[in-house]
């Protein structure tokens, strides 16, 4: 009851005209920031942070949170429409969103993404409302060994991602891991894999550079080659009927959406993880629980819905450690955290007590932001579809420019743009040889997180890997991931056995 009271108070704050207006403006701005490749919620929030000094702190965080939220919705748009991940959090959406768009189902993919985002957002805000303090305890209980176990789980969900060819999937994962090791070692500070002493390698390989290279440049080369210059413009249709139909079809993905929401929220509340690994893991899980895992990567609606539900849920989740522990769960919340310091609010365990109006106003505004984001998003679908109707001769250069901008924007370094071209060409060649690329992207995202937590754990345990099995949470997660690692092998042996049985 106490919580409902507080929430009601929060709604009174959030529904003040200025706050309501800021939510609507925020989600709309966020939607477009998220849709621009290279411009993610981090940049959006950072750019607009200084403008918030004009309003009271509560309104300020409501505005920034609305942008964060809107950007989570928006990231899906360019992933689906152009095949370029709009933001790091939307990389997994590309895997199935793009094939759907090529089949002329862009409107369905966009609708599914919007609905999934809404569900993910709502579930996570409900969890936030009801269980913030106990969940903060969970976040505290996660140390390095638990984090490493979680990363193993993430890899395990991806083992089956590359289809049946497990050696090729492994190869792809190892390429990603090797690339993620480039740069300065986080623990010792020693430079590693600085090829030809090029300065640009010191800051490591930003995984957006790899993702845009593979999905933007590589995909474009692939389209040009496979169509031999005679590009068939994807059939793009849109009407109210079709959107209603799409809503019905989204039902297929209900399981994936719910799995993605809970998983995303949970990963989001853990410091150091955030929405990007959350959405990737959700994709892996959706494939695992799907009845038609083979259709993943070829345009399965669940493959769009799961990561989108997860990234919205994770963005709400990552606010939890920010508010209760003063630790950002994602790069964007790190900026929000900076904002709170500037507004004179002390994040930490006391915030819920000392600044109840601020906290509950923010939570209530997330409900409202969620609702507006889904409405604004669906309203814009016809406009986005119109983009797809452009002839390929116009679309291709636009995609190319967006790729270059997207590769340049995060670090503002031409080195990254050249690297992106190299990855694009390499990805195109590997694709011709039938190597799956998604595992490489996953590995470059999770690799550094896994490496640091592994080394910290081993330092704590004086080099003994038993630490992962002595702590209850870590041991449980490790056990689950071992089962998942073994699963494809079991399936493989079974298939062989039944083949033999059929042969006899």
């Amino acid at each position: 009851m106490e919580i409902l009271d507080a929430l009601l108070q929060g709604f009174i704050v959030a529904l003040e005209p200025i706050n309501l207006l800021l939510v609507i403006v925020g989600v709309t701005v966020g939607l477009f920031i998220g849709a621009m490749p290279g411009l993610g919620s981090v940049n959006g929030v950072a750019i607009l942070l200084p403008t918030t000094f004009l309003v009271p702190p509560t309104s300020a965080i409501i505005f920034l949170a609305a942008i964060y939220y809107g950007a989570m919705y928006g990231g899906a748009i360019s992933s689906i429409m152009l095949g370029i991940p709009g933001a790091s959090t939307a990389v997994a959406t590309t895997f199935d969103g793009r094939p759907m768009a090529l089949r002329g189902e862009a409107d369905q993919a966009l609708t599914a993404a919007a609905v999934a985002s809404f569900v993910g957002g709502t579930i996570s805000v409900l969890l936030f409302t009801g269980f913030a303090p106990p969940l903060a305890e969970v976040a505290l209980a996660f140390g390095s060994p638990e984090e490493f176990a979680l990363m193993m789980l993430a890899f395990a969900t991806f083992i089956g991602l590359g289809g049946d060819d497990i050696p090729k999937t492994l190869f792809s994962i190892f390429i990603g891991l090797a690339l993620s090791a480039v740069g300065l070692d986080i623990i010792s500070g020693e430079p590693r894999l600085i090829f030809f002493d090029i300065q640009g390698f010191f800051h490591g390989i930003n995984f957006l550079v790899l993702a845009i290279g593979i999905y933007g440049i590589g995909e474009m080369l692939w389209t040009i080659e496979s169509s031999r210059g005679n590009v068939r413009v994807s059939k793009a249709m849109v009407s109210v009927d079709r959107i209603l139909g799409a809503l019905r079809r989204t039902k297929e993905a209900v399981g994936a959406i719910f799995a993605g929401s809970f998983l995303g929220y949970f990963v989001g509340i853990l410091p150091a993880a955030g929405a990007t690994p959350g959405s990737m893991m959700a994709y892996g899980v959706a494939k695992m629980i799907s009845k038609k895992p083979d259709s993943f990567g070829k345009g399965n609606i669940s493959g769009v819905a799961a990561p989108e539900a997860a990234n919205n849920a994770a963005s709400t989740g990552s606010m939890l450690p920010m508010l209760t522990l003063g630790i950002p769960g994602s790069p964007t919340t790190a900026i929000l955290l900076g904002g709170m310091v500037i507004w004179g609010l002390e994040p930490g365990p006391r915030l819920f007590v000392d600044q109840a109006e601020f906290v509950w106003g923010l939570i209530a505004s997330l409900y409202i932001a969620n609702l507006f984001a889904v409405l604004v998003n669906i309203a814009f679908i016809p406009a986005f579809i119109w983009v797809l109707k452009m002839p390929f001769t116009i679309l291709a250069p636009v995609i190319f420019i967006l790729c270059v901008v997207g590769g340049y924007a995060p670090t503002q370094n031409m080195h990254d743009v050249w690297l992106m071209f190299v990855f694009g060409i390499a990805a195109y060649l590997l694709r011709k040889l039938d190597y799956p690329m998604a595992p490489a992207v996953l590995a470059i995202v999770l690799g550094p997180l896994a490496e640091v937590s592994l080394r910290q754990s081993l330092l704590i345990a004086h080099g003994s890997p038993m630490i992962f099995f002595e702590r209850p949470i870590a041991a449980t997660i490790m056990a689950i991931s071992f089962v998942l690692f073994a699963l494809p092998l079991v399936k493989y042996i079974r298939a062989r056995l039944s083949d033999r049985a059929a042969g006899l």
Partner: protein
Amino acid sequence: MKTMQGLFIRCLAATLALGTSMLAFSQAAFAWEPKKPVDFVIMAGKGGGADRMARLMQSVIEKNDFASKPFIPINKPGGSGAEALLHLKNAKGIAADHTVMVTLNSFYTTPMRQKNLGIDPLSFTPVGRMAEDTFLLWVHKDSGITNIEDFVKAAKAEGRDWIMAGTGKGQEDQLLTDFLNGAYGLQMKYVPFKGGGRVAKELAGKHAHSTVNNPSEQLGFYEAGTTMPIASFTPERLPMFQEAPTFKELGKNFVYFMQRSVVGPQAMSDEAEEYYRGVFKKVYDSPEWQKYMTDKSLQGEFITGDELIAYWTDNNGRHETILKAIGEI
């Protein structure tokens, strides 16, 4: 005749007015101003003490219009600040006049530990020292430890299993850990994490036994009664943590500060240097900054130019001695 005279006076007035405005214009042209947004490099991860402080400086600049172009914070935490130092070293031309960096003490230690980077911190442009941050020794409330004797006893009992969490290898936190190990005959295990905020959380979550956080990083947990300070590395007790004695009082003459300075690249022009010095002096004098210093137990005057170089030289020597003593270099 009268009209002629009037016309003459008017002409004269107009000429004078034009002249003055020209003068004003040329003066404005002389004062250097940034031509594009300024890269505000932070040599630490997001959410730590250095990061929060940099973002506060940025907001003070924005809010009060201290600069004509925005300051964009960029985190370069890699390799105990090596990534940030290299970025600064390589800033040339227009970039040199549009890059400033917030430093920690890894400003001294990272170049010493990684000679191959070829960085001399004393060669950077001294913009201003904004504050000196303080260190305390923290434990979890549930540990039952309330004073240094308890701490030493408990840490001795655990031996190598006592975990001290800190930020980065060979950085401030490790120096303090090594000092404690040496002074009290302990064998605490130092485990590096990314950012002071994360370190504070490790202690609150009982994944570490102790930390040497800055006050700003532990404040939230301290106020919630989760963690508590045992002793401070300052010359005198901190007003906020009166209960924590200094190591001096405890008979170990060890005082250690973290510098919070703003530096520019070697290649920064004199005009730009003058400009940034002005901007950050204004930040230092602003009520927001002064309040932050009181709230977070920061100390130190604003110093710049030769005085700052002298301060760096002194501290650089001190760090070299400490690092040599503990066998890091």
